């Protein structure tokens, strides 16, 4: 009995350390994160192997497609509540632990040596899409929308090449803000910026939240309904209400996972579904807004080439009858193809005062049916 009591006392004394180890084991197991330990060991072993292999060694870290190994750490957060803590999983197993960059290009694993360690900069940057800003919940304006007369519209003609290289005339016109009364904006935190500072808060409908991805967009419970307490999903909302124009911009959050192909697969699925649910709507697929060259050079999964690659594919989805492609990057980027650095503070989001450039672009590129 004495020894039992002593053991008990000892356990209570060391309760912190004991709990630490126990909870740690439970945590790592339940969230499937043992690869924190596993991956670097595996990567080091692979690296050693490649030192002795002659073929298949390429120093270049071709990150064009932004591919990453399968073993990205699973998000420990349940995907359900997007408007709460929507998070992009930071890819710790990316190999940065030992300064290696591992990329999967064309299905083959290639390893190159990155910098052993960079001193962390003290720049306060808005954690791009990895931020945990809770989604902005937006009340769509009252369902009964008054139709305003359109004021003078200018008509611009633009010749666009389609995939089969047969020039089809897409005619754009310029509109005023009230045109967007029956428009829907779907997007991530950049679209949230449009909501906050675009002056369309009371005019258009917004289904947008920080961290939204193509994989979650239809099931995201972010739409508030009048008279109802909970929120409904975007898919449900699209079933209930018809819009004349839908502006769609997603893609920056997904760059840390998957490939351009997996992204486009889901993207096409989603657009097809939206077409189904909104047969009379004109769908504008907006090319993913670029990032600054500086942000792109940071060396993580967000880079200009990757965004361009995805935009190229998104453009192919436009049929120029119901679905059109708009590239706001044409008015927002500098000569190097990156977002104009004076327009942004963190390299990813437009500052409030420059959102109007984006809005003006949309206003000047309304398709004449």
């Amino acid at each position, binding site marked *: 009995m004495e020894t039992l009591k002593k053991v008990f006392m000892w356990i209570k004394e060391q309760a912190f350390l004991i709990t630490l180890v126990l909870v740690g084991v439970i945590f790592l197991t339940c*969230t499937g994160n043992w690869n924190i330990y596993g991956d670097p060991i595996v990567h080091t072993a692979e690296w050693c192997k490649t030192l002795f292999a002659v073929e298949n060694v390429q120093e270049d870290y071709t990150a064009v497609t932004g591919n990453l190994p399968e073993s990205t750490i699973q998000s420990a957060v349940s995907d359900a509540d997007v408007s709460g803590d929507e998070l992009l999983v930071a890819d710790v197993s990316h190999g940065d632990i030992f300064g290696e960059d591992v990329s999967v290009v064309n299905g083959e694993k290639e390893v190159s040596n990155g910098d052993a360690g960079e001193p962390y900069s003290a720049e306060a940057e808005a954690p791009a899409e990895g931020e945990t800003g809770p989604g902005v919940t937006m009340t769509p304006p009252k369902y009964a929308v008054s139709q305003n007369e359109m004021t003078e519209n200018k008509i611009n003609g633009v010749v666009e090449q389609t995939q089969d290289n047969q020039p089809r005339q897409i005619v754009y016109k310029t509109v005023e803000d009230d045109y967007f009364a029956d428009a829907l904006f779907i997007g991530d935190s950049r679209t949230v910026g449009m909501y906050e500072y675009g002056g369309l808060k009371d005019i258009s409908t917004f289904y947008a939240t920080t961290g939204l991805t193509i994989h979650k967009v239809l099931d995201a419970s972010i739409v508030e309904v009048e008279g109802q307490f909970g929120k409904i999903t975007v898919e449900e909302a699209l079933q209930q209400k018809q819009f004349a124009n839908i502006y769609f911009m997603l893609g920056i959050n997904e760059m840390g996972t998957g490939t351009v192909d997996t992204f486009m697969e889901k993207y096409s699925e989603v657009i097809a579904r939206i077409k189904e649910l909104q047969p009379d709507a004109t769908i504008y697929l907006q090319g993913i807004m670029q990032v600054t060259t500086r942000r792109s050079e940071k060396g993580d999964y967000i880079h200009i080439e990757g965004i361009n690659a995805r935009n190229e594919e998104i453009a192919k989805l436009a049929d120029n009858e119901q679905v059109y492609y708009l590239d706001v990057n044409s008015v927002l980027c500098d000569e190097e193809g990156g977002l104009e650095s004076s327009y942004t503070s963190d390299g990813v989001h437009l500052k409030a005062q420059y959102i109007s450039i984006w809005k003006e672009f949309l206003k000047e590129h309304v398709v004449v049916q």
Partner: protein
Amino acid sequence: MIFSSVEFLLWFLPIFFILYAISPNKFKDVTLLLGSLVFYALGDIKYLLLLVISVCANYFVGLRLEKIAARSGQSKQTKEEIDIEKSRKYILITAVAVNVGILLLFKLLSGRIGLPLGISFYTFQVLAYLIDVYRGKIHKETNILRMANYVTMFPKLVSGPIVSYDEVEKELGSRSFTLEKFQSGLQLFTMGLMAKVLLADRVGLLWNEVEVTGFASVSTPLAWLAALAYAMKIYFDFYGYSLMAVGIGRMLGFQLPANFRTPYMAQSVREFYRRWHITLGRWFREYVYIPLGGSRKGELRTICNLLVVWLLTSIWHGNTWNFLIWGGILWLCILLERQFEKRGITWKWKFASHLYLWVVITISWVCFAIPDVGELSIYLGRMFGLVEGISVSSGDWLRVLQNHGIWLVAAIVACTPCLEKLYHKCKNHWLGKVVLAALFWVCVWRLLVEGNNPFMYSVF
């Protein structure tokens, strides 16, 4: 490598302490040194050599600086003694000049090349050692291993606390590695980790949002809220980091000094900076302010001495103009406070003095936070309604409060002594320990999910 990162928490810390624990006692100093060098290399390998050179060079200088004890009964110094005194003085001056010169060089160039990790801290560490040996406050350290550990020990290498040699002299020679101290230190470390990850990083998002929006586009209430958020962020960031440093020190068997003493409870700017980054403040007082005469040579001289101290403090923090504005504001406030105190003018109500402090310090942090003076003036202009806002979204502060308000409130509450009191009450109870251990893993989870938010002070 920063403390609040998955790499440190799950790799470096366990591996180091396993190795440290199994090292025989005589070998522990070597393990510590190697661990610290590896730690530094993982953070900034290109300047590892500089650190090593600095330690070695200053070690040899220290050997030559030993003060010769005055022989009693002798009224006149021999020529030999005079020569030794002279050479000691010149050696010190040279050593200080070289150390400071290198630091200044890097500070000036830090726009183009990065600042070596921890250089501001370890340079001050070394200077403190040299000056103390010169003054005879401590004896020279003849064991280079101990000297190296004093300068490079990884808990304080990157961001302090700046420790005076006599605070760790005994433990450098012999310390004990016990389970009790290990656990206690790790508990303290966890408190620091929580302060950083669960408070500083959360409340910092408010400030980040405002940065992203663009300062010209924030409403005045939001400008104040965000400034307050920054004031909270920088505090819990640094306070958390300091707690983690002391915690690891304790795990190793050292007693490192505290850096913060609920500074936001102060009632004047002077008091604030006696409670904020205490080890830096005392360094400047000990090695700059007092040698210049302190406050003992009349008010005018005191004002000049304070100016020198604040000038140096500003430069120490950064090489852009905004830091001078920051230091300047604080210097002015301190002057005014001294004058008012002399004339017996004080706040009528205690509440007013607290409000005064919060307002002034918050404004000063804005100057600290924004390197570009143009942007800074826009921000201050928005705070005081002097600058027209562009694309301001009305009610933006309400939305921000909705999203982040709870963290701001939690942070403000945590500025009071209640948090520390709570900790001291619970830390020895087994349930408290269980909860704390669970919270450790909550922090790890947050870090995994959102990537590591780098500690702000790690470029100083």
